[in-house]
């Protein structure tokens, strides 16, 4: 089984984001692997441990994305490919999915696994777009994956519950929390990851046709409606004030 896992580098949630004109100011930003992609890496490794084959971690981004690939190596992937894009519109899912789908096609992978969304853009688009470009089925929000040869049985989260689906490889999967518990890289893994090769691909080599989005501007979040703390002598006082505020002032209930 040849498995591609998609690994995106995103700013750590606790990081302070400074908004520039068309992109953020990256100075001082701490970068991490998008949390859902960790489930993807882990699942790739588990499939290989069971069925054999190879796990290839792919990250698209500027030079720093290599750090994410080193972490994937330390967790146990077999190969790493960096799709190096320097003037990257991080937000354009169709451009991203085009580059990645072309790479995956060339690799002839059986399974592509990514996170259910990346936590910087929250678009939930790239992996399913890749499935469409490769003309293969997909399972989104996977909570459990089982392979029997090419036959795949999966449990996934749907609105209000879960669903069991059957499909077959080649396919694309998006990982939801609950799919597995990602392992911590071992010290030995971290040491050896430093020396492992990272294959670099440029957009031109992957036949990119270009971005379909234009960033008009970035802005700070809208100011919140000024908040106020209610004053009351007891719980009953708070309750009647709140009910009044929500019904008469905010008019939401």
């Amino acid at each position, binding site marked *: 089984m040849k498995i591609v896992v998609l690994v995106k580098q995103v700013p750590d949630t606790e990081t302070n984001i400074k908004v520039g004109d068309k992109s953020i100011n990256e100075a001082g930003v701490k970068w991490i692997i998008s949390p859902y992609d960790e489930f993807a890496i882990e699942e790739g490794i588990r499939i290989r441990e069971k069925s054999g084959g190879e796990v290839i971690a792919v990250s698209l981004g500027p030079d720093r994305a290599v750090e994410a690939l080193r972490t994937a190596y330390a967790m146990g992937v077999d190969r790493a490919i960096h799709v190096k894009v320097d003037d990257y519109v991080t937000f354009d899912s169709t451009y991203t999915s085009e580059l990645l789908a072309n790479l995956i096609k060339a690799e002839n992978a059986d399974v592509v696994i990514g996170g259910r969304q990346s936590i910087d853009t929250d678009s939930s*688009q790239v992996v*399913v777009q890749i499935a469409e470009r490769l003309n293969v089925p997909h399972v989104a929000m996977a909570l459990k994956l089982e392979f029997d040869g090419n036959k795949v049985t999966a449990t996934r989260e749907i609105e209000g519950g879960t669903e069991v689906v059957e499909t077959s490889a080649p396919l694309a999967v998006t990982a939801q929390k609950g799919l597995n518990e990602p392992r911590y890289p071992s010290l030995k893994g971290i040491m050896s990851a430093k020396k492992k090769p990272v294959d670099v691909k440029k957009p031109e080599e992957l036949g990119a046709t270009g971005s379909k989005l234009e*960033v008009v501007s*970035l802005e700070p979040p809208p100011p*919140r409606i000024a908040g106020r*703390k209610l004053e009351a002598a007891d719980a009953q006082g708070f309750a009647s004030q709140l009910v009044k505020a929500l019904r008469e002032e*905010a008019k939401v209930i």
Partner: protein
Amino acid sequence: MADVLVVGELKNGELKKISKELTSAGRKIADAIGGKVHTVLITDNVDAFAGDLKAVGADAVIGANLGEFSPEGYANGIFAIIQEKKPAVVLMPHSAQGKEYSARVAIKANAGIVADAVGLSVDGGKVVAKKPIYSGKAYANFKVSSEIQMFTVRANSQEVTPKDGAGAVEKSGASAGEVRTKSISKDLSGGNKVQLADASIIVSGGRGIKGPENWPIIQDLADTLGAALGASRATVDAGWISHSHQVGQTGKTVSPNCYIACGISGAIQHLAGMGSSKYIVAINKDGDAPIFKVATYGVVADLFEVVPALTSEFKKVLG
């Protein structure tokens, strides 16, 4: 041609509010760029909903009978309608289903897509979509440069404004085509309660509720308000409630009109999921908790006293 195509959504045979929100938003865009609004519903019973959608600006309400939900089947059917109507703009819900089929529709139509938009306006004949990025720490405005401009839109982010459209009813012959993922079974045991994603009111509990035996206190308030039940990650990790209730960065993103946070500290990862709520109420006994920085109304008090009092007060006024 500058038409807008809206994809609406039904649930248990009823029209979801997002269908009206998107039709209304589509009407405003169509008026600005000079076109018609077509709202598509996946149903064999489109006549039942045409009036509601006409009243918020739909010129045509299209029923497509694509059977049980499957992302591939819906994408095939919706794409067939797009090919026929040739819209300039397509609006889809950023719902669990919408996220899945929209990705396939965008590729089929060779269109750029902005997902999870919360604001839509028009500039120079093109839609400008605003969306929160980096956990809501910034907002970005985008234009889509492809011929068809596609957007998925967050529930509760668009106003519903009455406006009469022509409301002609059409039945589409589009079919689901080949679907390669087969649904074997569904477990909807959490299914009858209000869903977080489209709830207009959410009552959430955090570690401050002390233990799973105390959920009824929170649930009573939620039931009284017809609200969905949310939870912080701390309560999910402690095993007090299932992950499907988790609000936040690694849970659900919600945008209700009113979010009532009970015993939740307001960690950045939690705010990432609910920070765009219109009104936020925080009930927390620690006056310095970060949740008060975003709360419209703050109550510094013990939730075990205030929440039951609130429930009975609401019961009184709501009858």
